[in-house]
């Protein structure tokens, strides 16, 4: 481990981060502005007829992914797992769950991706395992076995209750009683997902060993699960209550999740995680090629704190977060978050996620009024346009390239344990996890030949199926392909700085991307009514905007849900 002293407290960490400003890179590092596609394997494509997607299903669709124009894709977990949290509860970090295929399938996938110039990022869960993992089975046996300190164990309080007030963001106490050890074990998520103690060097070595297993095989990096939870307070101090709703605006689980009522000083985002992050980075850096670590940062004020996790190229390369997803209560608030991100993106890096396998569909979440007005496709284009032009690039969840809307599922269809805990105030994560609609003419969307896919394919998704959109030049899919092709060579987007304009009226969004000698302006009307914005001279439009955007008499006229990128005219 590095001998460098890192500051002790969270404020000191922020101060350090703010003192280290960074400059745009030229030439660009591939990951900084990359557009990354998220493949949720269980719902992508089923090649074996089990009703669940699999590795060979992804292989069959590699050309499709390449044709999107993305730089690479992140593949959700395919490791052996009891699937209580659908693969985020892992029992073996070094093999393939038979439900998803074989190790040979994985080799073929990696090779196929690289042959198409696509980077492949795996989903790695450093902070917890399944309770069926052999490490946990050994650790729970006694208080003095060789792995006794591999997880976070603590005695009961004097009254038999848990050691402190920490809550699981999935509901209930974050402590589960283990009758064998007669101690409580900590689980920040489901009770079947006990947290590893990464401050134990043996544990960190073992986790790093698993990381190296896949790096040796040639993967291009990892999406790291829940990096706000890598460590917890060693003294297990109770969290204080939160004072206002503002404290936890970014926490999911419905409006009243009790988790929101605490200030998560001691169970999230603790300083002990910093050496762990640095150790992970050192490991990845020791490999050739630009291998990357992109962390998931949730349950906290990620737009401001991301920099702690990505500082100075010593920690993660980038994070992605939920601020643009959960912070969508009002347009003003959303633009405010964009502004904060822009200003805090000093030496760290944040990728823009408008949705992912844990959220609801982007158009339904961010532009519900457009969906209600029957303009989901236009709304989807506008959002993809924003995502592809904002500083940091974006992560596109499968199906968002089709403009899929959030389906309404019945409770009987629900598989997500989080939803089962908080239903109906929170409908959980199944809505975005319904299988990809590949063919419109098939009740099962061409996803599977099994009689029943693991989640139903919403009827309304069939009319947005891939085969229809490929034929339609005006489709969301073909728009995205043109958009990503365009941005590939645009230096202001690839390496430029960013300024969010706060002087434009809602619901217009405008920002600038610029280098020393080039500047692109982006203007988007996220409302349904036409708006205009003062612009002195007629601009030079980039070929990716909506044609109906016009300049006339000192103003740019933007119909509802239209957008444009342009350079200043002479």
């Amino acid at each position: 481990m590095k001998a460098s002293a890192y500051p002790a407290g969270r404020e000191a960490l922020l101060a350090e981060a703010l003192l280290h400003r960074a400059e745009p890179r030229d030439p660009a590092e591939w990951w900084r502005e990359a557009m990354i596609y998220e493949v949720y394997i269980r719902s992508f494509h089923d090649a074996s007829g089990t009703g669940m997607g699999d590795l060979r299903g992804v292989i069959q669709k590699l050309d499709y992914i390449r044709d999107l124009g993305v730089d690479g894709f992140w593949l959700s977990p395919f490791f052996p797992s009891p699937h209580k949290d659908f693969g985020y509860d892992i029992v073996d970090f070094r093999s393939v769950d038979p439900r998803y295929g074989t190790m040979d399938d994985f080799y073929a996938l990696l090779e196929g991706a690289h042959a198409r110039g696509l980077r492949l990022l795996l989903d790695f869960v450093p902070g917890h395992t399944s309770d069926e993992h052999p490490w946990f089975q050994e650790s729970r046996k006694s208080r003095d076995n060789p792995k006794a300190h591999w997880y976070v164990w603590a005695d009961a309080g004097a009254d038999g209750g848990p050691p402190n007030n920490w809550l699981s963001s999935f509901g209930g106490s974050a402590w589960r009683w283990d009758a064998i050890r007669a101690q409580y074990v900590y689980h920040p998520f489901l009770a079947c997902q006990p947290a590893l103690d990464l401050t134990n060097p043996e544990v960190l070595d073992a986790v790093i060993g698993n990381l190296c297993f896949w790096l040796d095989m040639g993967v291009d990096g990892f999406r790291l699960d829940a990096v706000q939870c890598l460590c917890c307070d060693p003294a297990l101090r109770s969290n204080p209550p939160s004072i206002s709703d503002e404290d936890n605006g970014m926490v999911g689980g419905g409006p009243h999740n009790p988790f929101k009522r605490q200030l998560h000083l001691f169970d999230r985002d603790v300083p002990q995680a910093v050496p762990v992050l640095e150790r992970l980075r050192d490991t990845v850096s020791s490999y050739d090629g630009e291998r990357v670590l992109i962390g998931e940062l949730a349950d906290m004020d990620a737009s401001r704190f991301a920099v702690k996790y990505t500082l100075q190229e010593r920690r993660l390369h980038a994070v992605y977060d939920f601020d643009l997803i959960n912070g969508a209560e009002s347009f003003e608030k959303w633009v405010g978050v964009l502004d904060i991100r822009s200003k805090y993106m000093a030496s760290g890096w944040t990728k823009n996620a408008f949705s992912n396998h844990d959220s609801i569909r982007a158009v339904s979440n961010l532009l519900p009024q457009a969906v209600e007005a029957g303009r989901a496709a236009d709304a989807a284009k506008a959002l993809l346009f924003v995502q592809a032009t904002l500083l940091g690039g974006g992560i596109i969840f499968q199906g968002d390239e089709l403009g899929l809307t959030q389906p309404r599922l019945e409770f009987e269809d629900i598989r997500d344990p989080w939803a089962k805990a908080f239903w109906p105030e929170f409908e959980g994560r199944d809505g975005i996890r319904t299988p990809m609609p590949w063919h419109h003419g098939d009740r099962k969307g061409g996803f599977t030949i099994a009689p029943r896919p693991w989640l139903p394919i919403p009827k309304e998704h069939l009319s947005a199926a891939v085969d229809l959109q490929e034929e339609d030049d005006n489709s969301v899919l073909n728009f995205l392909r043109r958009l990503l092709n365009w941005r590939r060579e645009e230096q202001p987007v690839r390496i430029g700085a960013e300024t969010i304009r706060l002087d434009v009226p809602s619901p217009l969004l405008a920002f600038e991307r610029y280098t020393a000698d080039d500047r692109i302006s982006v203007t988007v009307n996220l409302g349904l009514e036409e708006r205009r914005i003062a612009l002195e001279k007629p601009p030079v439009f980039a070929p990716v905007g909506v044609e109906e955007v016009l300049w006339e008499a000192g103003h740019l006229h933007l119909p509802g849900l239209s957008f444009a990128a342009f350079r200043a005219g002479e």
Partner: protein
Amino acid sequence: MPNSNAGADWWKGAIIYQIYPRSFLDTTGNGIGDLQGIARKLDYVAELGVDAIWISPFVKSPMQDMGYDVSDYLAVDPLFGTLDDFHMLLEGAHDRGIRVIMDQVLSHTSNQHAWFLESRDGRNNRKADWYVWADWKADGSPPNNWLSVFGGSSWQWEPRRDQYYLHNFLRDQPDLNFHNDEVQQALLDVCRFWLDLGVDGFRLDVCAFYMHDTQLRDNPPNPDEPTGEHFRFNPYSKQLHKYDIAQPENVHFLEKLRQLTDEYENRVLLGELHEGDGIRIHRDYTAPGRLHLAYGYWLLGAHDISAKQIARISEDLGHEFGDGWPCWAMDNHDFSRAVSRLGFEDEPEAFLVRLVALTCLRGATCIYQGSELALPQAEIPYEKIADRYGREFFPAFKGRDGSRTPMPWESAAPHGGFSKGEPWLPVTPPHATLAVDAQDQTPGSILNRLRGFLRWRSGQETIRTGAIRFCQVDEHVLSFLRHSGEDHILCAFNFGKEDAHLMLPEGDWTELHGHGFLGARERDDIHLPANGAWFGRKSA
């Protein structure tokens, strides 16, 4: 005037056979026992010589706790049959002189009960106060430190109301708010429905759990190491359950229930008490005007049952005029089978002598289905465990399935003749060899010895209802007098592995025969071989 009818005291020394319907006999082939299955075996039950059957819950339930989570108190669960099936069963039992005691789970309902579905929907509906709702603490955590018997906090947050509700057991079993008179009345109406139908009484599930402290005060820590074997694995035992259960107001509801029961003839209330403070609660709950009978966990969780222990408990419970009547039990559907628990798998006679001794004490006795066969605990692999309590604490506590496996009727038939389908829990090979048909054919089998003894006992009115006075009690020998008027019967048992001796008390004693146990008198000396017993009547 209540209790003035002939036979009104039938319950005092009753032998109550507990039937777990899910595992008794399956007539439909779905792997789950049913009411028609019980009806079909009534002759078997009658032949045991019992006075009553207690049937574990058969009303409508999502079966998260195998029927102890009721979603409709007035309907029979389709798994078990129909209300007509129950009528037939009741009639068939009464024809054979068997009373029928129904299990009433009043402390909580299923979370699928219509009352709860309404209550959880908001804070202003008509049933808003029917369950125990409370706001979160400032930090979002539950209102206090109360724990669930089945693991974790006993508070579950409900997103629809943004409040926590109390559940002493599974989160699927919300606690009813007994401080609300409407709730009490609704439950009394439920009981009236079944009394009108003709059931002879109720076994009241966890009846000390009805009331909670309305101030929701934290329970204090338990300063002592947990005593009950049953709870050592469970943090529940680290608290003194001062505020979550057994509140003083509890008895007021029991009195109302007794008044209702007394409107009918010869009905009985049998309460289940919890482990902590059981003796005090027993006195309190079986006082005049409250429960007829109650049982605690004294012997149910024990890994050793000595003569001294039985005498001490009996003395503690009291047996003077006005003291309540206990119900003795070594086995039921919540505890591992006594034959294994006490280490008597190779010596079932040691189990039998203890069971028989219990039936001679002052009070009723529960005999759990399969005990008459001296079934050992069944080993169930984790994959087959159906009990959520067991899955929670496995393997320190493997749950209650090991005592809930199906009855073995025929040793050679698939699944012991319990079902034509795949049973919900397996019939293990050791159980099949102990099946009813095999024991039927064997004169000295536990089944036949118990039948013979109960037949003999039914003729001894003094043993059923008389007073009790303990005589010689040491590590192995338990002896006591049962007396009523001029009649005195000496009951003596040897729990030891060696021969034992006992001095006859003063008086002129006549040896009683026909009970099937070995013991011999030589002048004033009673010689008891291991697992032997001796009975004598004092001549007037």
